């Protein structure tokens, strides 16, 4: 009989403790993010697809078309071209295509670039209905961004 009342009182008490917890949560700020309207700032070491780094003065890509990233890529998803131009030292990048469908984000391209011309971007909203959506023209992207 005493167990009956003990259980009754402790049970009722635990119910009120439960209400206290949810009641406290009710007045605390929300923790969810309204995703399409708000975006998470990605962490510094997040690996998105690669992007070209612009030269701070000219805004042109820092790339010198040495082709090391292309060679280093185990999935063969980078293709780039360059040309010699009058009055410009070294080669000028004319085409830089990343086939993101086969990229595994291993980072060999970023590792092998001695000129610090490519880095991982922070883009993650990449869903698309067609395969062609994932063939990125990185020069075009750089121009759109600046």
């Amino acid at each position, binding site marked *: 009989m005493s167990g009956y009342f003990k259980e*009754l009182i402790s049970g009722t008490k635990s*119910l009120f403790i*439960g*209400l206290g917890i*949810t009641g406290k*949560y*009710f*007045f605390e700020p929300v923790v969810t993010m*309204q995703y399409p309207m708000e975006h998470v700032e990605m962490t510094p070491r997040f690996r998105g697809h690669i992007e070209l780094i612009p030269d701070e003065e000219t805004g042109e890509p820092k790339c010198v078309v040495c082709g090391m990233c292309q060679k280093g890529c185990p999935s063969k998803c980078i293709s780039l071209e360059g040309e010699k131009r009058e009055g410009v030292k070294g080669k000028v990048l004319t085409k830089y295509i990343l086939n993101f469908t086969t990229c595994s984000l291993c980072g060999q391209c970023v590792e092998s670039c001695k000129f610090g011309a490519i880095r991982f971007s922070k883009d993650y909203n990449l869903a698309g209905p067609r395969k062609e959506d994932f063939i990125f023209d990185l020069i075009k992207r750089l121009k759109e961004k600046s």
Partner: protein
Amino acid sequence: MPEPFRVILFIIFVMAFAGLNAAYLVWCERKGAGHIQRRIGPKEVGPFGLLQPIADGIKLMTKQLFLPKGADPLLFMAAPLMVMVPAIMSFMVIPFSETFVAREVNIGLLMIFAFASVNVLGLLLGGWGSGNKYAVIAAARCVSQNIAYEIPMLVTTITMVMVTNTMNLNEIVRAQAGWFFHWHIFRLDISLLMPVAFLIFFVCSLAETNRAPFDMAEAESELIAGAYTEYPGMGFGVFFMGEYANIVIGCALSVILFLGGWQSPIPFHPVGFLGVIWGLFWFLTKLYALIFTVIWIRWTYPRTQFYELLNLSWKVLIPISLFNLILTALQIKIFPWL
């Protein structure tokens, strides 16, 4: 005010009150659930999602009404009405303020309980008429649950009738005039177990209206949607409205019996029209505080197991409410000085 005009006005008011409550309590429920789980809840339709109930209503109304194979057409169609209509009828005797009551019936309390028992019948017929095994299981559960919880609820009500000597809801409220410690829940001089009686009544009203954690009638994770499984569109909508109207009735009864109804916590009551507003304000404040508690409870506790539910009623609520009845009788008749 001429009588027919008054009646029509009250019918419109009661229907609008029940309908708006059903619509906006769903919104409150979703907002409450959201904030308790630290989300926002509906926010897209209108400011703060305030137009969400209208969108939901339109969605439910545009859905096709069809009769499942093997269902009993008459029972299937009548069941939602049997849940909705008694709930609306019960509003007729609820005193919103001293003079703001559709009909001051002498046996108002009895009338509400008479109509409340039709509610169960509606769920039973709905489950049975659907010809669906989940619905039938839910209906059977619902009936045994309601039988179990009607007893402590009525015993507690009898205690309150014994205390106030009347079944007129307005008289019960008038008996609690004065300071807030004149409300029945604080009247330990009448019965030492008054707060416990309030708890029993509140828990029973949760179970009677099939609210979580006693929502056996629509145990989604076990029985699809329980008795509502086969109901399309507005058939389900009417059930839903009936459920929320019943919650309002249950909370209103708790407020009237224990929390002083339209009485303010201080002994101050203006006369005339201002008095009506003053009473209405206090009644609705207490009512919605209690309804918020109902929502709060739903998002705090998990659903009870079915036998635990019956254990709670038969082993705890009924013995204690019976003990409370005897104790109150003793305190009133034999030890009136206590």
